[in-house]
């Protein structure tokens, strides 16, 4: 079973090697597309295996858990890998029209594929130290992508991004050391068994907070998000799209994984902290966006604000809230990556991303206007798009939990999101271009136009599909939430049925 778990990590790595060797040739971009397509196939196979068999685990090098490195896929991991593959394919196609020859020679495609490998590795690993290693793989390739080209803005943003992410990494590492000292294991399933048995639960909460800060920094939650709006508007558009879609979500995934599987002993403390963090993240993000006058800067602040909704779902810690968090993760990756892709085309047509210096897109490129409206309204939560259902579930869960203030905050933040989106709409699309330019799509060469528009359209269609037929996706999220809140099948699959405490086994045997 382990090959099916390892292929989504191996494919991007092999693609990266091939793309690097051929970085001077135009074929490199196509290799990247082919690798992403293969990854989609592999992730589909993984998903169908998980849907059929439940949680699957593979021991790398056949060292039995908890001694070797375990790869595990439950429904959450599987869906994150699928959505990573979809984003990777969309961005790889977009890059054919967006990334210039100089960036390609410097190894854009190879770095991009290594980044994807790091992301899928982080989603699939069942070992905490291995998670750290995948974070580093992701980090170093994202450093490279961020400063590729080396303009002054990129270097400036890069410094802040690198500095703050390295601090987060060191906190993560210290947390790992302390947790290992207390339990003698770093296998996540094994931790789920041993951590509740520790005598000093106060110390566990302290370590949990270290992990919360480390992952919270990666996820860009309040008050640890400052690296994100400082850097995400500086690199190439395809780079910022893949960053916006995937990188912060890895942090959210790690938070969900650790705070449902391992640190679920003192929910009253840890998840209350998360609750406040979620509220402040939503509000500061959206207010930050309201103050910005640049297409990509507004979108960057909205990443922060939307992360708040996912953290809110995790913090409420009811089955419905976790459903909301999972649904939100999936919806948000598609929508946010797509908005950044649209901003790339808009900038190419009008010559800038500063809202004061652009305009006229609605009159001259109405098709792009529609492609912007779909993800923008979805982000704000208009029915019947995917964002409506994601927000609906999260708000419903917070009302059920009687978290009135947070439910109100979530709704107000939704309204303010509309304000930002209408600002982009009014400035970039409705008002005439200040220089009198008529930015029609036909001004882009046919070849580039196809590569730029096709992924945007595909992701927009996907948003509509999730929005119009949310039933299967919500059902999937429900099953995934069940697995997250009851980790016994996760633990049993990794360690074997003997690893569970007595009453758990009795309960599992009692199940049909």
């Amino acid at each position, binding site marked *: 079973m382990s090959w099916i778990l390892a292929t989504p990590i191996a494919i991007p790595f092999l693609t990266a090697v091939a793309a690097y060797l051929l970085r001077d040739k135009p074929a490199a971009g196509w290799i990247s597309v082919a690798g992403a397509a293969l990854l989609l196939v592999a992730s589909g196979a993984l998903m169908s295996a998980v849907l059929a068999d439940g949680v699957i685990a593979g021991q790398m090098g056949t060292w039995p858990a908890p001694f070797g490195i375990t790869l595990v896929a439950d429904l959450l991991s599987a869906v994150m890998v699928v959505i990573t593959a979809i984003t990777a394919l969309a961005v790889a196609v977009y890059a054919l029209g967006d990334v210039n020859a100089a960036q390609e020679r410097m190894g854009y495609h190879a770095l991009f594929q290594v980044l994807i490998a790091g992301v899928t590795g982080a989603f699939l690993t069942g070992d905490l130290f291995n998670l750290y290693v995948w974070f580093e793989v992701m980090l170093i390739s994202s*450093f490279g992508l961020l400063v590729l080209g080396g303009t002054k803005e990129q270097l400036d943003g890069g410094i802040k991004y690198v500095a703050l992410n390295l601090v987060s*990494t060191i906190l993560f590492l210290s947390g790992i050391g302390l947790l290992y000292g207390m339990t003698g294991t770093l296998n996540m399933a094994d931790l789920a068994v041993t951590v509740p048995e520790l005598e000093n639960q106060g110390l566990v909460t302290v370590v949990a907070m270290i992990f919360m800060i480390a992952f919270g920094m990666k996820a860009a939650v309040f008050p640890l998000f400052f690296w994100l709006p*400082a850097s995400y508007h500086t690199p190439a558009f395809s780079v910022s799209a893949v960053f916006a879609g995937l990188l912060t979500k890895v942090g959210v995934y790690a938070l969900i994984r650790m705070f449902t599987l391992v640190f679920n002993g003192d929910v009253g403390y840890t998840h209350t902290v998360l609750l406040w963090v979620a509220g402040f993240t939503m509000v500061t993000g959206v207010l930050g966006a309201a103050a910005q006058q640049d297409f990509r800067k507004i979108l960057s602040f909205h990443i922060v604000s939307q992360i708040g909704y996912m953290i809110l779902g995790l913090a409420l810690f009811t089955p419905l809230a976790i459903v909301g968090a999972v649904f939100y993760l999936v919806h948000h990756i598609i929508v946010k990556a797509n908005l950044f892709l649209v901003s790339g085309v808009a900038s190419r047509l009008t010559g800038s991303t500063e809202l004061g210096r652009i305009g006229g897109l609605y009159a001259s490129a109405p098709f792009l206007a529609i492609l912007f409206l779909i993800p923008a309204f979805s982000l704000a939560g208009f029915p019947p798009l995917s964002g409506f259902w994601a927000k609906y579930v999260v708000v419903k869960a917070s009302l059920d939990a009687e978290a009135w203030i947070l439910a109100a905050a979530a709704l107000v933040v939704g309204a303010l999101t509309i304000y930002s989106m209408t600002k982009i709409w009014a400035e970039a699309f409705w008002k005439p271009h200040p220089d009198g330019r008529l930015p029609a799509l036909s001004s882009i060469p046919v070849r580039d136009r196809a590569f730029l528009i096709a992924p945007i359209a595909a992701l927009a269609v996907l948003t509509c599909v999730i929005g119009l037929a949310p039933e299967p996706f919500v059902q999937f999220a429900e099953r995934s939430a069940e697995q997250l809140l009851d980790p016994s099948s996760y633990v049993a699959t990794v360690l074997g049925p003997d690893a569970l405490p007595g009453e758990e086994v009795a309960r599992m045997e009692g199940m049909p």
Partner: protein
Amino acid sequence: MEQIVALLIGALVAGAVYLMLSRSIVRFLLGLVLISNAANLVIFAAGGLTLGAPPLVPEGAEAPPALVANALPQALVLTAIVIGFGLFAFALALVYRTYTEIGTTDSDELRLAEPVDDKAMSKILVTEPQPRVAEPLKAAE
């Protein structure tokens, strides 16, 4: 033994925080080196310190003697050192490149990606290395 290492970690973290609060990015990076070594020592100390018992199997024996050092924290630290070294090398190159391009390592002056207002922008533009011929030409006018 643990106490000595704990004190050492404390001293490293204190020095690191002091350096990292500086506005100079170079000092910040040096602080980062200190704190990453502190984190490595945390793993090492939390994993249990065993004095003078290397995790080796004596010649002719099937298993190591009863009391040996745990090799796993050492493996973790080794991995962390290698990764940390790579990241630090990148960060140093980045700071050097920033210095040559923008002409400053003062984090307060790094406002290109997030300009506050026009005044702040003009301050940055002034700190950039200007071509030397500009001044005398102006004086000649």
